[in-house]
């Protein structure tokens, strides 16, 4: 149990493990922060408040671990090879992107080395290229009906510009050729100048 496992940054299960360790370490740090405050003769309530930043970070890390873990476990239920491949790419991207965003946590805790974090940054770029051909199909799979999406930019048929023009013409400001404010304010103003 005392042998630290080797971290293979390209392996999702390895990354799940790293997220788990990060969560455990941040929970421990938060608990120790409270303990240190108590040793400085602070009350339990003050100790809690003085450790709140660490506590929120610990919760955040715990939740991040849960999300990565659930995503990884979901892959185990996917039988279709093509879908498994593309979802695995997404899961790796999710996990790696999270590491680069919070790289300080992983580095400070000694969970990853600087070369590994750099390797992850390079790998993220490769994953972006891998996902590019499937990007539209991946959002199509959400299967959100045009009437539900209600977005000219996100239309299924992609006919954006002509519909944007049509939408704008329906603006109440276009109901009359000349808006009444012209007669009420601008014309009288002109007469006064």
């Amino acid at each position, binding site marked *: 149990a005392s042998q630290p496992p080797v971290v293979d940054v390209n392996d999702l299960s390895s990354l799940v493990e790293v997220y788990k360790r990060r969560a455990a370490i941040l929970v421990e740090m938060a608990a120790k922060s409270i303990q240190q405050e108590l040793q400085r003769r602070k009350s339990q309530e003050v100790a809690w408040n003085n450790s709140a930043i660490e506590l929120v970070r610990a919760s955040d890390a715990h939740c991040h671990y849960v*999300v990565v873990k659930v995503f990884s476990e979901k892959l185990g239920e996917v039988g279709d090879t093509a879908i498994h491949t*593309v979802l695995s790419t997404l899961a790796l991207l*999710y996990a790696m*992107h999270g590491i680069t965003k919070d790289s300080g946590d992983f580095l400070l805790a000694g969970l990853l080395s600087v070369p590994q974090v750099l390797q992850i940054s390079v790998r993220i770029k490769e994953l972006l290229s891998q996902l590019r051909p499937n990007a539209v199909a991946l959002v199509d799979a959400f299967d959100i009906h045009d009437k539900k999406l209600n977005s000219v930019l996100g239309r299924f048929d992609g*006919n954006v510009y002509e519909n944007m023009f049509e939408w704008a013409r329906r603006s109440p400001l276009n109901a009359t050729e000349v808006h009444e404010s012209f007669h009420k304010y601008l014309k009288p103003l002109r007469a006064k100048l």
Partner: protein
Amino acid sequence: MNPDIRRERENASFNVNELTFILDGGPEKTKRRREIESLVFSDPDFSAEDPNFLSRSERYDQSVRKSAQMILKLREYGIADPEEIYHYKSCVHPGGPSPLDLHLAMFLPTLLNQATPEQMERFFMLTWNLEIIGTYAQTEMGHGTHLRGLETTATYDPATQEFVLNSPTISSIKWWPGGLGKSSNHAIVIAQLYSLGNCHGLHAFIVPIRDMSTHKSLPGIVVGDIGPKFGFSEVDNGFLKLENVRIPRENMLMKYSKVEPDGSYVKPPSSKLTYGTMVFVRSFIVGESARALAKSTTIAIRYSTVRHQSEIRPGEPEPQILDYQTQQYKLFPLLATAYAFSFVGQYMTKIYHRISESINDGDFSELPELHALSAGLKAFTTWEANSGIEVCRMSCGGHGYSRSSALPDIYVEFTPTCTYEGENTVMMLQTARYLVKSYRQAKEGQQLSGIVSYLNESQDRRLQPQAV
């Protein structure tokens, strides 16, 4: 079909429909969802003005009209499964919440979970048939997530066997509940219970606020709409001031705790049961985060394939903006997040139902874990989704600013999830309380179960950086 987007679809390496089945939870669920969508979108009764071009009052009016139609149609088609009702509702009100949401999503479930059989007998059919239109009044003007700070009082009077409800201060006025302003005639009011001179903490009471036939407010009730907000234009979020309002003893929800006619108090088996409705909604919000991000990434990614801009190689035609690495870096991690949150939403629903069943069987042991998990994941996913929607809007350049993109509306309708049903930082601290408690237990050698069991492992090993 735009040729760029057609070409994108031709290049896909997997079967889109098969992936939709996974997201929906199986082909049958997809089929049924599409049937429901077709029912709504082909129904002329639901055709409506684009709300972007209406005033707030017109938007509320249109939304109430559609909600009324929706209730009739749900009965007509015999749609009663909560998931199917959700699908139907999300097509009728695709932009966001509606005036009857709290009636369906909080008043009814609270009744189902916390009412005694006698109370169900008395209130359920009236609620089901919308004779009673209810809301859930918990938050006060000066008190939000910190529930123990709520000031509204319900004092039991053994002489008349009634509770007397009061808003003792300005800050105790109920503030923000959806549907409270104009639509509801009843509210489940969360108040500090006083009996025989003792305070027994927060409990839920069914309080009539408007006459059920005239809809006029009842004596002692001051009720209205809180005014325009960042979003939620269709919803009459309201205020409620209670001035010596008397309700029968039987209007306290007494499935778990009780006040006897003589005023003696029977404690609930778990103090967290009062917040059961909030836990339910928080679990649901995790899935909402996924849906908001799914919508936003759908818009931004489709548009990014249609939009051509500038040049990568001089002299060549303007490329699709999705070919820029920066655009991919903005959008693809969010696409991955939308998928991650979809699966976490499924996971939360499963956990919620499993633990709810245990609670119904009298086993409350897993309630603290559900409470901590739903609070943390609600905060984590809503924060991520909220900032993600804005990234999607910005990635659509100037057109993302137009309401025609739908992104501004998605943002303003989603943003409140970061504060309602528990402000996110407070939620994270609640989760932390459970984590620290679990950590201490692990340190003392106790074997933890569930999602925090990893804290046992951390007691005796540390991971070191390794070369690969």
